[in-house]
């Protein structure tokens, strides 16, 4: 069975700075994968390369065997990598449902003329998109907020909405950038359940960046530790917890 994601020797330079160097990652179907490391280790930079925001200086990224390096961000999104952002980036002045409808655009194909003339095909697809949006929202219990402006949602729900929006592109791989940032322990607990549910319901692989060790160790099956842009360790949570290098990097000596 082909792997969902196969990253080889990935690296990027910012000016003279080598922000990420020689990164290898293999994500199997349905895997929950954690990417951890101290601040400034290059985790978000990795996400930005995987999603086409930054162009890597070297290395390859294969999604189900197809190299996606050099593809535009929207093309990669349509090929099956969806993401959330560390500092939530919702379409704040649109409604909750509209946020999801925008990513569901990947599932529609009626033409401009069909839309402007409101032909039957427009209705058929819009109705389907509408139902799909409500279905996705209900997974996170957001269906009652569908017509609220995204900016008016409480923080935790905004994070969830971002995940729903990402799911709207029907991804094969979902990247979550610090999904628990700013959440209290109870909210984090709920989030962990949600992430598991998403994985099972949508049958996708998830790669997440997280600082909350409890969360990472609790749900990830495999973890890669980054430090100063290079790979420090890679393994199961148990292996990582006993890894000398990791302990040294995190606790100092």
């Amino acid at each position, binding site marked *: 069975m082909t792997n969902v994601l196969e990253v080889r020797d990935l690296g990027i330079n910012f000016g003279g700075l080598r922000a990420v160097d020689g990164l290898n990652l293999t994500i199997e179907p349905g895997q929950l994968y954690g990417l951890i490391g101290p601040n400034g280790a290059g985790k978000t930079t990795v996400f930005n390369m995987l*999603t086409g925001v930054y162009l890597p200086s070297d290395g390859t990224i294969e999604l189900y065997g197809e190299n996606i390096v050099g593809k535009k961000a929207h093309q990669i999104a349509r090929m099956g990598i969806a993401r959330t952002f560390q500092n939530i*980036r919702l379409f704040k002045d649109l409604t909750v449902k509209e946020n999801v409808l925008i990513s569901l655009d*990947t599932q529609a194909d009626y033409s401009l003329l069909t839309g402007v003339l409101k032909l039957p095909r427009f209705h058929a697809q819009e109705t389907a998109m509408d139902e799909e949006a409500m279905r996705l929202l209900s997974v996170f219990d957001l269906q009652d907020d569908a017509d609220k402006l995204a900016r008016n949602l409480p923080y935790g729900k905004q994070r969830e909405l971002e995940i729903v929006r990402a799911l709207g592109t029907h991804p094969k791989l979902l990247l979550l950038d610090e999904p628990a940032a700013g959440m209290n322990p109870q909210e984090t607990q709920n989030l962990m359940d949600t992430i598991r549910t998403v994985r099972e319901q949508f049958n996708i692989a998830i790669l997440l960046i997280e600082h909350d060790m409890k969360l990472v160790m609790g749900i990830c099956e495999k973890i890669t530790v980054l430090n100063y842009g290079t790979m420090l360790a890679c393994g199961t949570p148990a292996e990582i917890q006993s890894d000398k290098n990791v302990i040294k990097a995190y606790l100092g000596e």
Partner: protein
Amino acid sequence: MDQSFKKQLLIDFGTVLGSYAVLFALQKSGVINTYWQGIILVVCINVILTVSLNVTSGFLGELALGHAGFMAIGAYLSAFISKSLPLIPALEFPVAILIGGLSAMAAGYIVAIPTLRLRGDYLAIITLAFGEIIRNILKNLMLFGGTKGYPNIPAYTTFTWAFFGAAVCVLAAKSLIASRHGRSIISVREDEIAAEASGVNTNRYKILAFVFSAFFAGVAGALYAHYIRFLQPSVFTLDKSIEILVMVVLGGMGSIRGSIISATVLTVLPELLRSFSDYRMLMYSIVLIVMMLAKHSASGKIMFRPAADKTQEAET
């Protein structure tokens, strides 16, 4: 959904036909005199200009200062067509309008390409420069009479043409915004990076918004040309572009209904102030400043979509 759609369709067509019938009857019966008939016609043209600019400025969220340039292209080229094509008027005018719109649309495409890499204020500079280039070329194009003007354009624009031109523009803009294409355009305004991450080809939708907006500016230009019957480059200045932008902003960025209302009010108001002609522009400018200040003093009642400021987020 189908049910509500049919209702909406009935409301839309009812409003259009109803207001047409009322205005038409009032004009035919002489309740509205010829002077005001002219003003109503200009209102229709300004509605087209405002609604179309709202697509780029309000929905796409880009500050465009060259709308008069697109209008000029539509005006001159349509006038050229109707002056040189030996067709019957009933056929000639639609062809002229279409050519006017399409040529403005082509210009919109040309302007959109360089703007893809630019944002915010730089985009404003480019569109401003573009508008000035168009005007400068027209000034020197002897085919169109240069600064002396382009005379003897047939008087094809009637109330009916202008009214239905505006209706088509408004309905097209409304449907565009309600479609997946429109949502994608709005997503660019809201957050370009998040839009890309959601699979939106932002470049494509920027071009679409520009081209749509330019097409209707061209149509407005064509209607204007065949109403005023004499074109001069000095009509299509930066001031004209700004006048349209002011209508968009006062009506509310991203509000089509607001655009219609403000285009109407800001066209009729100066006419009412005509007796104070010396102080007219002075009052206009004061009203402008006061309205902006008033709008923002009432906290929370911000009609502008704050997300129109995309450049603020850019960090070094």
